[in-house]
């Protein structure tokens, strides 16, 4: 009788915690399918065979494949950037010859020529290298969409593994990440980049100097992003670890109670719970790796293009300094600082996302 009285609340508890077993048998496959089908275009193109194939995913995030993707990214982005750089270098040389001729003979016409060449340079740089911006903006927009897609899937998989505390922490993580991507990247960075690019293009005409404003905007943005990301990452990691520990402890106690107190079938139920959680753990790690791959693989192409563009701008800026051309050098440095900001924000956002996905994949189901 005493055992029966103890059994009733445990039964009630089990019904309340029944999500893991049912979810493990049906939910994960649906979640993986949904994740795979809902991937943003850039991520979907880069994944080998969707998110469902664990082996393919493991190969996709292997060091060897990542290196191959990186080299592909560099070799794909190099030719157009090289062509633009050669064109700009030629125009720079032409301008340097003309400027030296005008400085020695007719300074009167130099100012007009300077403005005209400034406009030409700005348009040439914009025309040749703006595709890196567009690609970066598309990637950041994709990250935002991926955060929206992954948040419910991760929450459901946490619950399926019995990690109620982690589900709350993970849900909070994804909510925070969505907030960062939406506000700091979507709502702030892209308009900020557009405004800075607009100012930079305007500054190409004559003596309009906007570098100070752009530098201040960039510094403030990077500082805010850095502080926000550090605080969020630390809070998320701590919350997740604490949540996982608490979940593990409570479910271990529950499993022990079921195994000890429920006659005959208790051990089987507890064992089944563990098996179900193990399968959820596998699915969760697959989803984690899949999300990481969906972020990392397209990131390399974006970063390669941004880095190569930045390198070309640095080399041209040095060349311009050697030739003594002030206006083109000013423009080249302005564009380079814009690429710096874009690069920092893209890598920051992607790494934060990978960090959360890794945390999610590494979090063991509570019953194991």
């Amino acid at each position, binding site marked *: 009788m005493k055992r029966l009285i103890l059994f009733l609340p445990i039964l009630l508890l089990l019904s309340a915690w029944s999500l893991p077993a049912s979810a493990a048998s049906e939910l994960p496959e649906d979640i993986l399918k949904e994740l795979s089908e809902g991937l943003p275009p850039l991520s979907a193109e880069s994944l080998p065979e969707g998110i469902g194939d664990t082996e393919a995913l493991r190969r996709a995030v292997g060091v060897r494949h990542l290196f191959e993707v990186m080299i592909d990214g560099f070799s794909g982005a190099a030719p157009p950037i090289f062509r633009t750089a050669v*064109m700009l270098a030629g125009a720079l040389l*032409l301008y340097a010859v003309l400027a030296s001729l005008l400085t020695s003979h007719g300074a*009167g016409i130099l100012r007009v020529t300077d403005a005209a060449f400034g406009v030409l340079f700005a348009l040439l740089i914009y025309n040749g290298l703006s595709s890196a911006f567009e690609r970066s903006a598309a990637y950041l927009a994709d990250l935002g969409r991926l955060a929206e897609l992954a948040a419910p899937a991760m929450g459901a998989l946490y619950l399926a593994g019995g990690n109620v505390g982690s589900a709350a922490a993970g849900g909070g993580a994804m909510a925070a990440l969505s907030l960062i991507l939406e506000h700091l990247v979507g709502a702030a960075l892209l308009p900020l980049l*557009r405004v800075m*690019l*607009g100012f930079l293009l305007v500054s190409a005409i004559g003596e309009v100097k906007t570098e100070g404003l752009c530098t201040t905007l960039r510094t403030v943005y990077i500082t805010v992003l850095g502080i926000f990301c550090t605080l969020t990452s630390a809070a998320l990691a701590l919350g997740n670890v604490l949540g996982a520990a608490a979940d593990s402890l409570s479910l271990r106690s529950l499993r022990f109670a079921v195994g000890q107190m429920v006659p005959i079938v208790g051990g089987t139920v507890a064992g089944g719970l563990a098996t179900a959680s193990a399968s959820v753990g596998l699915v969760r790690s697959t989803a984690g790796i899949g999300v990481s791959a969906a972020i990392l693989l397209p990131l390399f192409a974006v970063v390669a293009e941004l880095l190569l563009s930045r390198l070309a701008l640095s080399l041209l800026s040095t060349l311009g300094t050697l030739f003594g051309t002030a206006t083109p050098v000013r423009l080249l440095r302005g564009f380079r600082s814009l690429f710096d900001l874009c690069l920092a924000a893209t890598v920051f956002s992607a790494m934060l996302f990978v960090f959360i996905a890794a945390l999610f994949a590494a979090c063991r189901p509570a019953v194991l």
Partner: protein
Amino acid sequence: MSFYRLCGICILLGVLAITAKEGGGRFAPLIGLSGGIFLLSHAISRYGEVIGLLSSFSDNELSSSLLSLALRIVALCILTEVSAGICRDLGEGGLAARMELCGRAEILLVTLPTFTKLLDIAIGYLRV
């Protein structure tokens, strides 16, 4: 024409101009003028080759048109400066200044569509 031959012609024209000056000086400015036109046409054709080579690297129409515009600006600059210099050599400083003014206006006029295009792009970006 090779650059060495060009240098030789230039020196020869200089010697001729000095000789003409010593003999009365009436034809000396004309020799300078003809030499200037000859050198200018050569310089512009060489710059044209450079721009043609650079245009071969561009993969779209805008870059090519920008580079040909650069060539036009270079030609206008050199033409203005050479013309103004010849006017000064002939003792017409005022005419040289007017020539420079016309040159500036011409460069502005040639570049104006590009200015407009740049401002359109910039305003498009600033209109968030």
